[in-house]
């Protein structure tokens, strides 16, 4: 049975169901008892499962991440949530030097099932220390899975898939998506890693996007349709592993690829996609792969600067049209 859920509620539902299905699942975060419930994404969870399974964390990101690693070695399945992705820099020693490497460096002796939910801020002057989207950084390091859902269905299914997988998973969520609504199954289900999602089918250009750039891409596709151009929109969803086949197939069909990213392009997933698609479709693209991302600067606070910082659908459409017309 389906019901209508926001992105936040879908995440809350997944967390609730995961904890309900398996007692080894526990949550840890800051603000777990707050009536805001981490922007709604943990609604009812504390009330239902109580303080033993919903751990309110000290503001000690590094130790808490390490506790999650140790708990995972002990057979538990922790979900660590950080209200802003930026705070995770304090925990990277545990996540990258330890969690991502333990299964490997101990020769496969022990899995580290561990989920980290990172919420990316955007707008209202969140500024440089509260707006970073860190999926590319995590994806550089082997041993982690990295996903960035753009809609309630993926958000729920990926969280469930992450909790019950045996590897450390980074889920990059975006605050501006939290109110997006979609009809999704009430029952628990998984969305596997490594699957991109074709959101709009089209012929003239492939627009690959993730997280909060997916809605912009869809809107751009609409604008392009009005101008008589047909864009295929692909939600990358899974940053690591990347579903390169789906994107290559689409780009092969359309002959053009525009990659949108919520983070910087330099050494980011947009570069990786471009590199792989160019290699696989060498000589078969109609125009160079383009990337449209935030500019190479920290997020500014002032709202006129912010407006320039993020790429709206209109800019996406413009860039795609230029590519189709061959003027760039």
């Amino acid at each position, binding site marked *: 049975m389906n019901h209508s859920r926001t992105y936040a509620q879908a995440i809350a539902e997944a967390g609730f169901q995961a904890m309900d299905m398996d007692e080894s699942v526990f949550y840890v975060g800051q603000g777990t008892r707050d009536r*805001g419930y981490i922007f709604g994404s943990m609604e009812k969870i504390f009330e239902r499962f109580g303080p033993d399974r919903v751990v309110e964390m000290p503001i000690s990101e590094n*130790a808490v991440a390490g506790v999650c690693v140790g708990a995972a070695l002990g057979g*538990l399945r922790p979900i660590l949530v950080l209200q802003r992705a930026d705070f995770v820099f304090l925990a990277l020693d545990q996540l990258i030097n330890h969690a991502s490497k333990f299964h490997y460096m101990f020769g*496969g002796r022990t899995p580290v099932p561990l989920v980290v939910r990172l919420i990316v801020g955007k707008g209202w002057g969140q500024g440089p220390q509260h707006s970073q989207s860190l999926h590319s950084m995590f994806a550089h390091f*082997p041993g982690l899975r990295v996903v960035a859902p753009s809609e309630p269905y993926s958000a729920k299914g990926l969280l469930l898939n992450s909790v019950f997988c045996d*590897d450390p998973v980074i889920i990059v969520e975006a605050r501006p998506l939290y109110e997006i609504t979609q009809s999704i199954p009430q029952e628990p289900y998984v969305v596997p890693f490594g699957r991109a999602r074709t959101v709009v089918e089209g012929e003239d250009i492939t627009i690959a996007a993730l997280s909060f750039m997916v809605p912009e891409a869809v809107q751009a596709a609409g604008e392009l349709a009005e101008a008589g151009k047909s864009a295929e929109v692909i939600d990358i969803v899974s940053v690591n592993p990347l579903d390169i086949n789906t994107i290559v197939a689409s780009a092969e069909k359309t002959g053009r690829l525009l990659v949108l990213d919520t983070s910087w392009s330099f050494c980011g997933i947009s570069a990786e996609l471009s590199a792989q698609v160019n290699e696989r479709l060498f000589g078969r693209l109609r125009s160079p792969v383009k990337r449209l991302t935030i500019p190479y600067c920290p997020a500014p606070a002032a709202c006129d600067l912010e407006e320039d910082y993020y790429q709206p659908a209109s800019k996406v459409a413009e860039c795609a049209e230029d590519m189709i017309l061959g003027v760039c």
Partner: protein
Amino acid sequence: MDRVEIVKQMIRIRMVEQYIAARYPEQKMRCPTHLCLGQEAVPAVYGHFADEADIFVGTCRSHGYYLAKGGDLTALFAELLGKPGGCSGGFGGSMHIIDLKKNFWGSSAIVAGGIPIAAGAAFSLKYKKKPGVVVAFFGDAAMEEGVVYETVNFALLHNLPIMFVCENNGLAITTPIELRQCRTTLYNRFQAMGLAGLRVEENDIAKLIDVARKSYDSTRSGLGPTFVECRVSRWCAHVGSQFDGPVDSWWKEPVRSAARSCPICVLMDELIEEGKIDFQLMRDLKDRISEEIDSAYRQAERASDRARPNLTEFVYASGLTSELPLGKRPIKSISFEHTEQPKLVNAF
């Protein structure tokens, strides 16, 4: 408690480390190796009181902890030799050893890296209402990493079954503690958090035994974390095979004055005086351990090499699609209805 067992373990650790030191220059054990020569007492004593259910977490200098917890010697050598039969399949080397069967839950080469992980292990015991306690071993330098304070706070807040054991050898590589810490006394560092802490002076084995036993008792009985600073001396170079302590005095020249600084000699003296052991017993022991070590090393050395190295097989533990543990509990409990929109008071 059996001090004879303890001294035997100390001797075994000493001899394993000496053996490694002796053969390291052959360049078959090709990894950064941190020996614990001179620091055998803490592993042996804490190992002695550990139950199977208890868990150890170590540092880059972990051979002693591993062996004291019952870690497989052949697998340790095999690991140093980079063999697939190594305790970490050859992927880790000396700094990353593990023996889950014996509840030695691994070691990290990041200073203090194992400390919060140990607390997480303790959290899992408490969460699952399992017996056992966790011992987190670390050096004096770890007291400089903020994560140790964060972890102690967390462990106290949750009353976790964890024992923090700091081997203070006064050195980080070659830097003396005086250049690194505002106070060289460590045992009382967490007092204001409510964790009293105790100190054991170098070679006060009786006290070490007493403190370790009491720590286990206290933590096992649910009283939460304990912290002990053990003063020790490292006789070897930080890494590699050089050393210069009186490593052999316990059986070669136990009455030499240098022997007074040897934890093994100190404990042996006591036991001989009490008539619990004699030199002959010890010399026999030495021969037996020698044989054990030789044979373990030979076995490790002879063990097969990788047929074809597969570099990436252990990067991930599982595939792309997870299975939901449906049916573990009645499905009805899964249905979940939101009754109201959450009020976002914390909207930024």
